[in-house]
């Protein structure tokens, strides 16, 4: 039920800052993450160190770019199961071309273009043939994974010889802050802002909320869906290139199961699987929550046999609390 306009409106109406904060959709998640931080900083002396923080952010920064694409796609009413394979395919294509002697920047552009093409391919099947995103992206997930295997013979590509200025994208830092984190933040902030404010992205909300109503208002909804589908794959391509630069290798099996993680992040952050609502900010908080929980369990040396149980339970609890807080907020706002 949240959306940016409401948010801004609420924020403007709020008289004192605390009330303002409590009105924002994402407040519940922020509080939950803060609570985890407080608990963890008591539980482990290593938690609140710069190195640990950096490791935790690095663990989801690149995936966060995919989360952005998925959130926008979900808002428009779509879904994409192929994100993991398409990300891997970007690495594999760029890596193979580089090994074949192509300039790495050019190779990356080609790979991103290929991923964009895959997105357009999916968009075509969804908007022109009329198939459901789920089944199209499932098929493409399988095909793209197959293509990864085919291009590499199933073996990871070692790309140690990538030029340092290329590796800088994935491994470099500006001051103490890794470039990856900077890129991630820029992508997130740009898309968050545009999704709240730009006319182009508001159409994504309209389309996802009620495609027919949007079409009646003259919005070319098929084109919107085509574009969000393409954008999501393009962002996967970019993520794949950053991963490649970061790891100096291309792994054909990269990103297995990434789709569930990414969708979960968006949904925890308030995106609706029925389209029409969601925010980038929320989705990134969702990704952060998942990552912080995983990292914390690793840091505390919790037995692996317990980790999944705890992780799942925290996820369920967090989502329930968030849901409860939002219900209260909505009710409170009306009373």
């Amino acid at each position, binding site marked *: 039920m949240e959306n940016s306009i409401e948010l801004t409106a609420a924020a403007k109406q709020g008289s004192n800052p605390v009330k303002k904060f409590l009105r924002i959709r994402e407040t519940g998640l922020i509080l939950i993450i803060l609570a985890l931080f407080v608990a963890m900083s008591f539980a482990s002396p290593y938690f609140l160190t710069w*190195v640990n923080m950096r490791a935790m952010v690095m663990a989801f920064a690149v995936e966060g770019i995919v989360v952005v694409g998925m959130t926008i796609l979900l808002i428009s009413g779509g879904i994409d199961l192929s994100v993991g394979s398409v990300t891997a395919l970007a690495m594999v294509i760029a890596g193979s071309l580089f090994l074949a002697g192509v300039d790495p920047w050019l190779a990356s552009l080609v790979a991103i273009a290929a991923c964009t093409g895959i997105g357009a391919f999916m968009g075509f099947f969804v908007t022109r043939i009329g198939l459901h995103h789920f089944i199209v992206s499932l098929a493409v997930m399988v095909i793209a994974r197959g293509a990864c295997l085919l291009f590499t013979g199933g073996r990871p590509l070692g790309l*140690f010889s990538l030029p340092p200025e290329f590796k800088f994208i994935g491994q470099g830092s500006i001051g103490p802050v890794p470039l990856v984190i900077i890129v991630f933040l820029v992508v997130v902030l740009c898309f968050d802002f545009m999704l709240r404010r730009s006319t182009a992205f508001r159409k994504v909300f309209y389309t996802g909320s009620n495609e027919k109503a949007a079409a009646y208002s003259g919005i070319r909804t098929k084109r919107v869906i085509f574009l969000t589908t393409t954008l999501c794959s393009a962002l996967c391509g970019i993520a794949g290139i950053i991963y490649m630069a970061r790891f100096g*290798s291309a792994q054909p099996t990269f990103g297995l199961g990434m789709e569930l993680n990414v969708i979960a992040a968006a949904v925890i952050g308030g995106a609706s699987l029925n389209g029409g609502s969601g925010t980038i900010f929320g989705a990134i908080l969702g990704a952060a929550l998942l990552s912080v929980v995983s990292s914390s369990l*690793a840091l505390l040396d919790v037995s692996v046999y317990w980790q999944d149980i705890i992780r799942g339970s925290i996820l369920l609890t967090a989502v329930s609390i968030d849901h409860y807080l939002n219900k209260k907020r909505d009710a409170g706002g009306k009373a």
Partner: protein
Amino acid sequence: QEGLHCASGETYIMNVMVSGHPYWVPVYQGFKQAAEAFGCTTVFSGTPDYDITKQIASFEQDMVKQPAGILVHPMQSDPFIEPINRAISDGTQVVTFAADSPKSNRSAYITSDNLAEAKFAAEEIVKQIGETGQYAVLENPGQSNHDLRVTALIDYMQQHYPGMELVGRQATNQDSTAAYRATASILQANPELGAIWIPEAGSAEGAVAAILEAKSDVLVMHADITPATLEHIKAGNIHMALNPNQGMQGFMGFMATFMAAHSEVFDPFNDYRTSGYNPVQIPFIDNGFAVITKDNADSFDLNTYMQGRDPA
């Protein structure tokens, strides 16, 4: 105390991916047993996921604790170069096992010799069904050690036994249902099939079910072991399994890490002082493998082995 011994609190970490996998269990037992002998503390760490990003994050979190050494199974070689080198320059010694990061500064690498396993399997197949015949493999593309076990066997057969024809090659990705389906189809298409080689045990379970159902007498050989395939070996449904010596892997893994952390006892005849690398450098340690047959199967029940032991 004199001699090699851990200072109090001196910790060694074993870091893996898919940390719930049973393969690590005896490895860690070996690691721990060696550590106990030297009075050291051990931690089992890593990520439950098949996710390189998460494993690197967990490795970096291990580093925050400043352990004396980390025995790591790097999910991929190159992505670990930078983290491993950073750990070493921060004073934590790193040794790899079961998968390597050869371009990093890790001081040692302990593994099974997949080529030797493949060669042994090929020879055994030929010994059992003769030099001419049909064989098939199941595989798991993308997983390097499984890949090696399969491709090495195929290459070896081609070179040494041209009469052996590879008639089926299916990806099953450790999924017993997929293995069932693939094996059933291979059996259909190749009534003359003599043997099948499977690089891990999960697929072997499904494959055996298909072979039993088809009442075929194909010779089954596989690597690794699970209780179910063990029972099949005892029952004669599986001819034999080759199991890497996991305990030795962990034990030698600890030794190599510990020695790297205590390298002051060693002054080798080389340039380590001027070049600044760790004097305890071991490019490759083979932990060996065991051949599991009907006769010795009882010694390979992991559940029996683990009785009374602490997995953590």
